């Protein structure tokens, strides 16, 4: 269960969301897209196109590898974090995981034809289905769970049909969960009426994911949620938690430290599944940037300090970033200079 905290204007988290779905298309996975504000058809029309021609061929290879991994009923998660080395190396290296995408083009409809996709658009669902057993949960969440469970059961993702030879994976994408469009008021008030709907929803979703061959990404406007206790609980209930902080409109936009990047990626939690240890990489400071065609996530590193003055423009930010950087030795040295009075 990959939980993404949206950046303020939702631009980049939307991009990540689409990447997840696009990857699913190229790997031949089934898709389930749920949203309350944008019709899933529109979301799917805007998926980025794959970059290289041979990625489709690689995609088939990935599919075979992925299927054998998921033979047990455990779920597949932690995609973006594993993607990190791929992003840094040049696209021609032999160890490829996933695909590259060209953000300026949209995916052609032929690629969709081979996969099956399901959608859940809240305004439509509200008018159709009758009430189900809600268990004191927000009814929009309850319907979404019902819908997911139905697809898992019908399409046999839960391994209930031993006859089915081809096992496939369901990629679930849920956009802007917890926002007011889902009927939840945790984003608008400090003391929401029902503090448990979102966490109950996540718990049941976790159960569904564990029981079936599926992976899920959820984006949440975390900056709007006033009650931090909910965010803590949600973090405990998810496998991977990634936060995106974009520099738009914040003071960091003009900070020379960050001039090459559009935002930071905070990895709050990575999964520790089926093992005592987790896959921890060397550095935890990641930044992203959106170039005309490519969206990349890289390690945060400072450009060399070539100015004449000892200190940089904003001392406070520098001290902050000196704390953040675990691998940038340049920053540490500069940070210490401020301590020499």
């Amino acid at each position, binding site marked *: 269960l990959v939980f993404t905290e949206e950046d303020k204007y939702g631009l980049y988290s939307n991009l990540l969301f689409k990447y997840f779905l696009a990857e699913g298309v190229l790997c031949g996975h089934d898709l389930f897209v749920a949203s309350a504000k944008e019709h899933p058809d529109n979301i799917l029309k805007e998926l980025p196109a794959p970059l290289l021609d041979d990625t489709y061929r690689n995609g088939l290879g990935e599919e075979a590898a992925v299927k054998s991994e998921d033979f*047990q*009923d*455990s779920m597949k998660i932690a995609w973006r974090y594993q993607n990190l080395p791929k992003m840094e190396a040049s696209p021609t290296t032999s160890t490829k995981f996933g695909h590259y995408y060209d953000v300026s083009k949209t995916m052609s409809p032929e690629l969709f034809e081979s996969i099956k996709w399901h959608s859940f658009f809240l305004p439509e669902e509200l008018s159709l289905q009758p009430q189900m*057993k809600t*268990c*004191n949960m927000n009814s929009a969440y309850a319907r979404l*769970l*019902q819908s997911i*469970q139905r697809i898992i059961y019908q399409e046999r993702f839960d391994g209930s049909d031993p006859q089915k030879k081809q096992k496939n994976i369901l990629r679930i994408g849920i956009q802007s969960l917890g926002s007011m469009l889902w009927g939840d008021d945790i984003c608008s008030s400090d003391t929401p009426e029902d503090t*448990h709907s979102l*966490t*109950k929803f*996540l*718990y*049941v979703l*976790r*159960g*569904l994911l*564990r*029981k079936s061959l599926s992976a899920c990404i959820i984006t949440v406007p975390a900056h709007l949620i006033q*009650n*931090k*206790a909910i965010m*803590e*609980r949600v973090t*405990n*209930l998810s496998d991977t938690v990634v936060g995106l902080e974009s520099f738009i409109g914040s003071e960091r936009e003009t900070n020379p430290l960050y001039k090459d990047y559009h935002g930071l990626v905070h990895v709050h939690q990575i999964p*520790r*599944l*089926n*093992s*005592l*240890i*987790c896959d*921890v990489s*060397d550095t*935890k400071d990641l930044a992203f940037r959106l170039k005309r065609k490519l969206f990349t996530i890289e390690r945060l590193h400072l450009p060399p300090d070539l100015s004449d003055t000892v200190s940089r423009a904003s001392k406070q930010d520098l001290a902050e970033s000196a*704390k953040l950087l*675990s691998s940038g030795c340049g920053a540490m040295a500069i940070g210490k200079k401020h301590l020499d009075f």
Partner: protein
Amino acid sequence: QGKFTLLRDTRTDGSFLVHHFLSFYLRAGCKVCFVALLQSFSHYNIVAQKLGVSLTAAKERGQLVFFEGLKSCLDLLFGEEEEQSEQPSPLQFISESTSDLKALFDFVRMSLTPSGSDSWKGPMLLVDDLSVLLSLGTTPVAVLDFIHYCRVVVCSQLKGNIVVLVHSNEDSEDEENELVVNSLCHHSDLILWVEGLATGFCKDVHGEIKIIKRLSLELTGEQDHVQIYQYKIQDKNVTFFARGLSAAVL
């Protein structure tokens, strides 16, 4: 015998302790009731195999009663009506309006009460993790009541042990959770507090563990005995060392 151990983690994941205690008690021959609320059975099984214990075998011979919270919750919400009426689900507080954990307690009591043919040494209750119950809609008082009832049955009556994992955070805004954690700390015989390093992430030292033996509870006038170690988790093992003496430094 009859001890209550609290596993507490802050800024890091203390579940390696859960795996340890699970395999430890199974190897010791105790009857274990494991209330696993956050992960699936296969997760624990795979790790336990690395530690040398087979959970499926333990389940089959009746030594392990494994309650898989995620699965039970799904059965409750999506299950057929006839199945549910036979036995009340231990998690029925999710769907009912009552927030007490009586059904869960009954489940624990029934699994650990020795039947005639049992030959296991001492019962043991393991919970992973308690903080999830608050996310599911119970009140802190209900959680504390549940633990209290379990202690009465498991520790006092059956002379068994209880090990419970909770999450906590400094400056946590989750007051309900902090209430539960603080209250449990006061009542525990042994606290294993796992913390991430205050200086941030490090590859060789994954965290620090504080072992607090609550000698002050025994009314002998002694203070609590605190030991602090740092640790590094490996694939099949966890190595502990004194602070500042990790292998990378020496």
